[in-house]
């Protein structure tokens, strides 16, 4: 539930790359209303897109993604801060595995996603477990 003075905006999208744009646009609009700066918003757009791209790439067995394969975006606008939750009901993973395979993102063509989310937001958390979906929670506070 939203606290006092907080506003919740929910966006549910097909888990497909063409709708990353919609996730970014929604983040921009709510970010503006939450009082984030243009630079804050650019950062947060990347962080949100990274979380959504992970859902698209990793959450579901590859089988088209037309039906119930969805990305849930929950934006909570507070005074000078925006909390974004990106959630899926996909296969999940063990966040501990990330620490083990701490290969630098430069080595492969991937692995940068969580690194960017962490660096581009003020608070970052992943909740996931094999078989139980994934939720990424990020907070961006207005600079200035």
């Amino acid at each position, binding site marked *: 539930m939203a606290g006092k003075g907080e506003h919740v905006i929910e966006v549910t999208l097909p888990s497909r790359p063409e709708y990353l744009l919609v996730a*970014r646009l929604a983040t921009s609009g709510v970010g503006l209303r939450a009082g984030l700066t243009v630079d804050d918003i650019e950062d947060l757009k990347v962080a949100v897109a990274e979380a959504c*791209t992970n859902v698209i790439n990793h959450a579901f067995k590859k089988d088209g993604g037309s039906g119930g394969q969805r990305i849930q975006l929950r934006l909570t606008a507070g005074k000078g801060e925006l909390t974004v939750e990106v959630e899926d009901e996909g296969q999940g993973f063990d966040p501990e595995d990330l620490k083990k395979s701490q290969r630098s993102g430069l080595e492969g063509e991937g692995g940068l*996603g969580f*690194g960017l989310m962490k660096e581009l937001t003020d608070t970052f958390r992943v909740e996931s477990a094999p078989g139980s979906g994934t939720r990424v929670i990020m907070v961006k506070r207005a600079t200035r």
Partner: protein
Amino acid sequence: MRIRTDAVDECTTVCRVGGELDAYTAPDLRDSLDGLLEKGARWIVVDLKDLTYLDSTGLGILVGTAKKCRQAGGDLSVACQRRNLVRIFEISGTQEILNLVATAEEAATRLQELHEGCPEDASGEEAT
């Protein structure tokens, strides 16, 4: 996303990418760059002057292409000045591997320095 490719000289090719580069548009860029490599290009400038959005999917393609260029005996240099994008290169630590510079001119010069003189043939098909 908009992609435009131009030959600068016998050995250098410039690929200008404008608009937004994300997981939706990335396959087009990958195809374009792979196509250049297949045609024998191995010294590639990627000019991001008109790019407004970039994330890890785009970085992955740029890093992957840089490696392919090197394997083919060339290299790649990325030109980008937009503050929020430069930040993404910095955070990801990809500036060096991508020879990140501010402008396409600097990128061409950077490649010139790296290959020191233009190899005679630029149409080989070593990348099989």
